[in-house]
């Protein structure tokens, strides 16, 4: 008899492996989008039922690895350790198996059992890669489910596999990448030092491995937990072996290759050549890449505004008549009430609806560009100019969006990697001229300068900022 309990499934995978598609196929409309508690990273949770049992699915942030380098990775890692989901489903891209399995190799040593979802099997078949899931399963030791999530194939198999695993009491012995030879001696050394001083919810051998890899978060954690002389001993040993992360990455990739060589049959294709489409070549072209990007983004803006026209017109056109009607109906009421409702409430809601329309259009179009994969090319061609003002190519679109509407720009800053870069993009986009929210610039100008000089100074300050930014982007070159 199977007990009904709350089963939590964590969905992990690298970006662009189809993880969101799998999530959407599993949960359908029963999902909730929010933020990880106290963080600015998006969190999607949902649930589905299978054979009468309810499964809660948590979509972990898409990351390339589980180091402590970024917030998303820390969130993913900590979730698995603290919440101990019953199963972690790792989604990999069958057409790019070698790279996408890196995350799997990092998730396997963690305390939760893993099921491998082999997505995009159709793309792999088209490229001539025949993957045998049974051999894969045998080699890794975890259940493997081939899927084509975009076409809704394999989703039922996945839910069945999950169900069988949770309630079926199958044996689970995963294969884990193991360090060789002389590195093992170092690991035992580290283990002997930290023995007994490890916080309870981390397994000891995992901590040893992370210390070997010079993981920043774990080092700080152990620095606080260990008594000082032991910490000093540990840092001495670690300082003599600085290349731990590189060694570990090589070990993981060696493990991956060993597994893949057994499970994949490739039809003849030169592995060192990459076939690039014509569009790809133009999109990343040294000379034509930028004009193409500008044209496409402008077209995207136009499409966004056109598509959202209906909602915007609802928000703005009906407004005057509605306001006059409200005033007429409320003639008896006190002045402040009429003002609050007619001028404040109605105008506010009307403008908000108009902006909502614009947001819908913008996010629709940006989402299409992102899914198609063109966003990466834009970031690629823009990186040359963005790096001269200290940003990365990814900041290009949020800054460019600030041209039209600063709100879209600020919301779009979510895609930028590090916190400092995000703030820089945000502030630069807001305080640039020709920005939708010029009002902010004017506010600052008026706050700092005398009133009738403020207009002049605003212009000057704005122009100066623009000139500095333009100069840095187009004229000055950094030596890097």
């Amino acid at each position: 008899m199977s007990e009904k309990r709350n089963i939590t499934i964590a969905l992990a995978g690298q970006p662009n492996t189809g993880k969101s598609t799998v999530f959407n196929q599993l949960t359908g409309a029963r999902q909730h989008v929010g933020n990880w508690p106290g963080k600015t990273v998006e969190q999607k949770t949902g649930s589905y039922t299978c054979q009468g049992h309810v499964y809660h699915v948590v979509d972990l942030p898409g990351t390339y690895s589980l180091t402590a380098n970024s917030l998303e990775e820390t969130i993913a890692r900590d979730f698995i350790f603290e919440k101990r989901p019953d199963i972690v489903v790792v989604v990999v891209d069958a057409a790019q198996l070698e790279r996408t399995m890196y995350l799997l190799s990092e998730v396997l040593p963690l305390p939760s059992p893993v099921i491998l979802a082999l997505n995009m099997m159709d793309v792999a078949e088209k490229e001539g890669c025949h993957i045998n899931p049974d051999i894969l399963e045998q080699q890794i030791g975890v259940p493997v489910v081939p899927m084509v999530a975009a076409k809704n194939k394999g989703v039922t198999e996945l839910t069945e596999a999950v169900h069988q695993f949770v309630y079926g009491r199958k044996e689970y012995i995963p294969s884990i990448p193991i360090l060789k030879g002389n590195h093992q001696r170092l690991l035992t050394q580290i283990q002997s030092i930290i023995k007994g001083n490890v916080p309870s919810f981390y397994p000891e051998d995992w901590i040893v491995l992370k210390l070997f890899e010079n993981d920043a978060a774990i080092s700080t954690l152990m620095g606080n937990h260990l008594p000082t002389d032991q910490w000093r001993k540990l840092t001495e040993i670690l300082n003599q072996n600085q290349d731990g992360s590189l060694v570990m990455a090589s070990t993981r990739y060696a493990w991956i290759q060993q597994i893949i060589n057994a499970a994949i049959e490739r039809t003849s294709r030169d592995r060192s050549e990459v076939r690039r489409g014509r569009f790809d070549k133009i999109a990343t072209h040294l000379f034509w890449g930028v004009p193409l990007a500008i044209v496409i983004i402008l077209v995207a803006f136009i499409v966004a505004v056109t598509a959202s026209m209906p909602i915007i017109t609802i928000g703005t056109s009906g407004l005057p008549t509605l306001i006059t009607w409200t005033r007429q109906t409320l003639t008896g009421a006190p002045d402040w009430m009429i003002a609050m409702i007619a001028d404040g409430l109605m105008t506010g809601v009307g403008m908000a609806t108009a902006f909502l329309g614009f947001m819908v259009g913008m996010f629709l179009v940006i989402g299409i560009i992102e899914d198609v994969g063109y966003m990466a090319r834009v970031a690629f061609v823009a990186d040359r100019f963005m790096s001269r003002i200290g940003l990365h190519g990814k900041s290009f679109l949020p800054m460019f969006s600030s041209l039209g509407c600063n709100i879209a720009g600020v919301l779009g800053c979510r895609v930028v990697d590090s916190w400092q870069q995000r703030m820089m993009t945000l502030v630069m986009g807001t305080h640039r001229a020709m920005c939708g929210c010029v009002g902010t610039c004017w506010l600052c100008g008026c706050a700092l300068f005398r009133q009738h000089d403020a207009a002049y100074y605003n212009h000057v300050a704005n122009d100066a900022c623009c000139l500095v930014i333009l100069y840095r982007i187009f004229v000055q070159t950094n030596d890097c």
Partner: protein
Amino acid sequence: MLKKELLKWSRKLHKWVGVYISILVAIWLVEMMVLPAAMNPGFPTLNQAPQAVISSENQPIPLEQALKSLMDQQPDGLSSTAELDEMVYLPKKGVYRFANRERYLEWYVEAKTGKMLTNGFDLNSLMKEKAMLGWTHPIIAGIVRGPFYFLFVFLGITGCYIVFYPRRKRKRRQSVMTLSLLKKGQVAVVRGLFGEQRFISRVSAMGFTPDTQVTTVQNSKRGPLIAYLRDTQVGLSHGEAAKIQVEGIEQ
């Protein structure tokens, strides 16, 4: 190679011409202050002819009358008209200018009334003739000043070279072969990674581990480059690619 040599010599030329010009300027400044005092102590220096107060509609008095009225006013440093070797009427300023070229003194007399306006040391002529060590001997001034005009032209040419050369070629000589130096289509094997811990762990997680084969898909020396490894195209900036040590392999 030739261009490199030109660049090196341009830099040297700029340095030494700069030194030369600085010395000239220093000498000029010192002479401007010292020479007038040394030659004719007590006289103010004039750089320009003073302007007459009355407008120049009326006819000026004739030269002899102006001369006579000048002597009547007993100007400093002038004992007789024989000392004057230049007498000229300046219509625009409405003054007569009487000068003793040897001692570089000049006197200005108003053209209408004959009143003496100012007098003093004519600095411009002095500097033109005697500066740059010309007070020792005229030839020395020629020697000191002569190369200047010739060098000035060179300075312009080499200055342009120095400014524009780095923009054309930004090749940094490196002793280590890195990913950023590979040409399009070249295949190489990763040998090592430089840089800080964060960078190494990110890049090695993407697949850049030792003994991995990498193909350069696009490298234009400007902007990021695209490398192909482990079935993935990876975009890297030049700074990041320069931290990946590779060894090219023959195909």
